[in-house]
């Protein structure tokens, strides 16, 4: 049986991809951010998950406004990060796990989550930067798991509610755990935390709200579902709605989790950057 062993959150800011490409990990601006990752590297080296489900939000590469899925799951043999228009380094393709993708899609649609399936899906920095952070040298890290991308819409309102995001994760967990093969799976929730790129409020960051979200997501994620989508925009910034990805991940981890490490740093680019490693403790 496939088993979800833990979840990891991180911001997926494009500038991080450039910092990695230029080896700036020890630069004074970047060090407090990159210091959040060695413990996660150790955990991944010990656990060596077979599959990574990478929950991110597409930023105008894989999808345009002509057809915008609220929830999309990749079902491809491989995933390429293609040109996004402003040049983050392009990497070799990430190997997929299409059989498990289809099993998850079948299970979730049976469970009445209506998924958009994608046999091709160009992946952007939202997917790639976290892979580079967790598996240095990705995709050519010897422990690189096979990948399943999951993208939720935060480009255009209406976006999903926080409650729907949490329930998405719960449904995904059921689907994964009904896969007969013995596999271990790690789930990434990427994006956030607070930031706003557009409008007169550009540069908005909310330390206290971010810290509250990081605290509650561990043991009481249900409390966060009381936050309305407009309240999320107001408190986390227009692009802070990416916190939905964290909620989707949290739903997939089961009831009880253990926080193994966390880091929070302001600012990276325009963003409050949060990193957490949660290990699954059910059964």
């Amino acid at each position, binding site marked *: 049986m496939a088993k979800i062993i833990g979840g990891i959150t991180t911001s997926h800011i494009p500038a991080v991809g450039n910092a990695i490409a230029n080896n700036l990990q020890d630069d004074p601006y970047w060090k407090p951010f990159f210091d959040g990752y060695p413990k996660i590297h150790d955990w991944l080296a010990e656990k060596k998950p077979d599959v990574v489900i990478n929950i991110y939000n597409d930023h105008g590469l894989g999808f345009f*406004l002509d057809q915008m899925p609220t929830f999309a799951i990749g079902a491809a043999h491989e995933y390429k990060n293609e040109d996004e228009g402003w040049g983050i380094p392009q990497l070799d393709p990430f190997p997929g796990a299409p059989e498990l993708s289809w099993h998850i899609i079948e299970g979730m649609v049976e469970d009445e989550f209506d998924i958009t399936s994608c046999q091709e899906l160009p992946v952007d920095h939202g997917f790639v930067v976290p892979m580079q952070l967790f598996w240095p040298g990705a995709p050519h890290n010897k422990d690189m798991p096979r990948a399943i991308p999951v993208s939720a819409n935060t*480009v*255009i*309102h209406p976006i999903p509610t926080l409650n729907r995001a949490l329930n998405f994760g719960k449904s995904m967990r059921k689907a994964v755990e009904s896969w007969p093969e013995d596999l271990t799976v790690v789930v990434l929730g990427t994006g956030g935390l607070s930031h706003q*790129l*557009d*409008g*007169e409020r*550009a540069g908005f960051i909310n330390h206290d709200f971010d810290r509250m979200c990081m605290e509650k997501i561990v043991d009481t994620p249900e409390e966060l579902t009381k936050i309305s989508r407009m309240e999320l925009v107001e408190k986390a910034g227009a692009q802070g709605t990416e916190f939905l990805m964290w909620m989707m991940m949290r739903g997939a981890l089961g009831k009880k989790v253990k926080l193994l490490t966390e880091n929070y740093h302001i600012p990276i680019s325009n963003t409050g950057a949060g990193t957490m490693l949660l290990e699954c403790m059910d059964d």
Partner: protein
Amino acid sequence: MDINDFDHHTHIEGTTIFDGRMAMKGYGLNKMCYAFNRADMRDAFVADPEEFMDRYGLTEPQKKAVRAKDVLGMIAEGGNIYYLAKLAGIWKLSVQDVGAQQTGMTTEEFKQKLLDHAKPEGK
């Protein structure tokens, strides 16, 4: 019927909620910017911006905002920041440059504003 009659969204200062109403207004502009994922399209825009804007059916106010590199103007005309970022990339503007322009600061002032958000942990 005007869609404003059933606005779903609360007002948030300095923030445009990009919803169906804005998407209807901005479709051509956003579609043009989506095309900038391709290098040949970026080159074509740089070679002849007016022809390129006509190709995507931009409205006159949208063209005016693009010509002036006016980000707030483009947002007001339905531009979505994720797509506009690709246009900003052609102009070699960073997200801090874009933030500075929208808030009426220099880029250095805007970067300082971001640094000022940092609080010591435990506070």
